[in-house]
């Protein structure tokens, strides 16, 4: 669809621009302001230059070590989440019933975890995985496996990963299902006439048609797992020790726990910059896919 050039359209965008600028740019400026200063309390600030940033990006300092530790943990977490949730989501989407009341039934049940407040998700799993009163923890412990997510870091990781799979796999499945539904029946009939195997149908018909939604799913899941805060905070509080202290958790500890404003602000900016770069890749890839599709359809 061709759009007409009309600069007056700015008037329609202006309210959004004003509100988002008020709640995004203004606070961000505060952060920039803090990031170059140091404080000894009492609201007295001193110019500190780029010292915080130097500390932050140097793994040998205390702050840098802490930052990179949290960064690697967060990246590892995102990688694990993607390798589990994407294939599982595709499998679930392929297993959706074809039609009838069962489709609606499955859709509603699948979407349910997505609508639970994030700290309640944490609470649900906190209770569910406890060995004394939780079903999961009790069963696992009675199978003879020593499982305790507040004591062992591996158990804490497994619990958080299972929780995230429980919480977000449905998102991937729903997106893939939307992609699958857009495939015309004629494609499948043609494949049947050609005697294509199940795998060939998946490889040559279903996967290409899901490419676009899968891209969105991968990037959304990456973003959201990269800034995960509430669920692990409620479940493990970042522990045991620092084992599950992801970037967001560390940042909030630094900013609101210790009121180390300068360090926290510098960390915020670097964190935000990483997100911004990924976001830009997301946007470029998506608009390219859009343009590609339009060219092919035209």
């Amino acid at each position, binding site marked *: 669809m061709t*759009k*007409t050039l*009309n*600069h007056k*359209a*700015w008037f329609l*965008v202006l*309210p*959004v*621009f004003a*509100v*988002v600028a*008020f709640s*995004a740019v*203004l*606070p961000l400026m505060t952060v920039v302001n803090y990031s170059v200063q140091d404080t000894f309390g009492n609201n007295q600030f001193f110019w500190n230059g780029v010292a915080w940033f130097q500390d932050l990006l140097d793994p040998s300092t205390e702050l840098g070590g802490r930052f990179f530790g949290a960064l690697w943990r967060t990246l590892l977490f995102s990688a694990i989440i993607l390798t589990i949730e994407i294939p599982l989501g595709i*499998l*679930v989407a392929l*297993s959706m019933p074809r039609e009838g009341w069962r489709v609606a039934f499955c*859709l509603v*049940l*699948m*979407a*349910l*975890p*997505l*609508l*639970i*407040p*994030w*700290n*309640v998700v944490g*609470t*649900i*799993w906190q*209770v*569910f995985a406890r060995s004394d*009163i939780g*079903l*999961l923890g009790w069963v696992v412990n009675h199978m003879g496996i020593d499982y305790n997510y507040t004591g062992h870091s591996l158990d804490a990781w497994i619990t958080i990963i299972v929780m995230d799979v429980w919480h977000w796999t449905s998102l991937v499945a*729903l*997106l893939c*299902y*939307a992609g699958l539904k857009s495939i015309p029946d004629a494609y499948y009939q043609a494949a*049947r006439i050609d005697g294509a195997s*199940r795998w060939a149908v998946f490889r040559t018909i279903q996967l290409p048609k899901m490419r*676009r*939604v899968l891209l*969105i799913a991968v990037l*959304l899941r990456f973003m959201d797992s*990269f*800034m995960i*805060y*509430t669920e692990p905070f409620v479940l493990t509080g970042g522990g045991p020790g620092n084992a599950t202290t992801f*970037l*967001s958790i560390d940042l909030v500890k630094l*900013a609101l726990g210790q009121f180390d404003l300068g360090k926290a*602000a510098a960390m915020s900016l670097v964190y935000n910059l990483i997100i911004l770069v990924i*976001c830009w890749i*997301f946007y470029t890839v998506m608009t390219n896919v859009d343009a590609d599709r339009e060219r092919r359809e035209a």
Partner: protein
Amino acid sequence: MTESIVIDRSNTSELRADAANRAAYRQRINGKAVVMTVYLVFLMLPIYWLVNMSLKTNMEITSGLTLWPRQLTFGNYIKIFTDQSWYSGYINSLTYVIINTLLSISFALPAAYAFSRYRFLGDKHLFFWLLTNRMAPPAVFALPFFNLYSAIGLFDTPWAVALAHCLFNIPLAVWILEGFMSGVPREIDETAAIDGYSFPHFFIKIFMPLIASGIGVAAFFCFMFSWVELLLARTLTTVNAKPIAATMTRTVSAAGMDWGLLAAAGVLTIVPGALVIWFVRNYIAKGFALGRV
């Protein structure tokens, strides 16, 4: 004669292949059903456990594992609905969620129209910038928001949380609405203009009913993301506007864990989502894909 035989042969082989296909198909259906059932059971187990706990007394919860409440009690729910400090949490949450949804939709509607219909100076950059706000980690904004809303005297009011949630909900609403609006042919705009409708009149009387489902979906997603977010909501409130999700943490610190009450409060936070999900079940993927499916 020979020809007909050949045809016959091919027919039987086709029939046989068809039968084989159907058997394979039935097997696949079974495989599918198994995967789906296992997945749904996995999803429902923790929720079942929460509901189960919310209907038990604390005595029963701590004294041993029972798969269903032996002494069914609604005491936990009654406590929440009668204790002001509990149910006011719900009212606070709903207040800021509704304010936020109304704000987001009314601001996003004209903007989405502009993005879907016109090219203008910096439109692509602006669209991208909006997206970055949807992706920005709330943790980065917690402290500056705290300072900002304290400074302008909105701290601990529903308005502070509602405005803070606009940060990610307005971009989301713009993206979703733009997706739906692009599906409406431009000819409708032009015809309306020729028929002498003014822009506001056209927009409210003709255009908005056309994208009613889009508005519904966008509103649902604003509602939902404002409802599930806690970090900002908790940072910006202390007493008067404290959301229910933050009230829940109270039972953790109280002497002797009140598990039943915690579970009941948890169940009640799931209810609003479960109620509205039915209406958007066919659009939910589109919403999560930022209007891009």
